[in-house]
């Protein structure tokens, strides 16, 4: 079978910086492909590609995530294994750098599919995942976007951009 890696960096009306966005997804696809070349599985490659994007501050995931109404970062992630249909997810998780890795641990180390909020954070700690500061997940751009919409109540700004993750 010829291996294939496809990645996306989010859909919307505008890209923060189009050329950088295009470069970031290329790097992430290559990171995933490199894992396959080293003998990694599809799961390893998908996780590696997404970690690459979570660590890139221009994307809305991990570092660079959108800020909630309290100006905090709450992140969601999901991983699915097509071989077994096993899956793992985390929702509204805080203060970790790579939610996709935590979702894989939910899949592999628990009998559950999804852990949310404080429970997800406790599980991360139990799995030895280092907690990071809120500050390290915020970026100048995410703060600027939050400031731009601070006069709106959640959902009152009906632009397509405001509804898309």
């Amino acid at each position, binding site marked *: 079978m010829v291996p294939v890696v496809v990645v996306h960096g989010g859909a919307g009306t505008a890209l923060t910086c189009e050329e950088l966005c295009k470069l970031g997804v290329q790097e992430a696809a290559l990171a995933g492909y490199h894992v396959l070349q080293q003998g990694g599985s599809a799961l390893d490659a998908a996780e590696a590609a997404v970690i690459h994007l979570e660590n890139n501050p221009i994307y809305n995931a991990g570092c660079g995530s959108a800020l909630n109404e309290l100006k905090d970062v709450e992140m969601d992630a999901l991983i*699915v294994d097509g071989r077994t249909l096993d899956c793992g997810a985390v929702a509204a998780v805080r203060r970790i750098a790579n939610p996709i890795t935590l979702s894989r641990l939910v899949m592999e180390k628990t009998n559950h599919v999804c852990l949310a909020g404080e429970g997800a954070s406790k599980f991360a700690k139990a799995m030895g995942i280092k907690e990071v500061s809120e500050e390290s997940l915020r970026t100048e751009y995410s703060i600027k976007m939050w400031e731009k919409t601070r006069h709106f109540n959640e959902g009152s700004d009906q632009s397509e951009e405001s509804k898309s993750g």
Partner: protein
Amino acid sequence: TVGAVVLDSKGDLASATSTGGIVKKMVGRVGDTPMIGCGGFADNLVGAASATGHGEAIMKVTLSRLVIFHMEQGMSPSQAADTALEYMNTRVKGKGGIIVISKSGEWTAKCNTKRMAWATVKDGILHYGSQHGEHNTKPL
């Protein structure tokens, strides 16, 4: 939101999706990303998908599973993605995008928003783009 779908040399498929959500969301708001069949899905018997966009709309139509369902019915990844995105738009006025790989390695990246940055590696060639119809290639 970011995501990846992968087919390895053994024929195994995987999907991964991660997001920070939407700006100024309510505390505790959860979108499509961690919902199986919404933000992502993978089944070696059919294909794999990862979604992005308006989370509430994606959840209402279970977008990733819908694309895989269309492929089960015989559509190509491209046809399945177009059909599911059109359904989401007409049924719940939803905007978004999706990346898909079939079990045979056919792939697509589609959106009904203005842009979605995407990239693919297959057969020693890097494909990438962001605007509708944009498809650049580079040999590795």
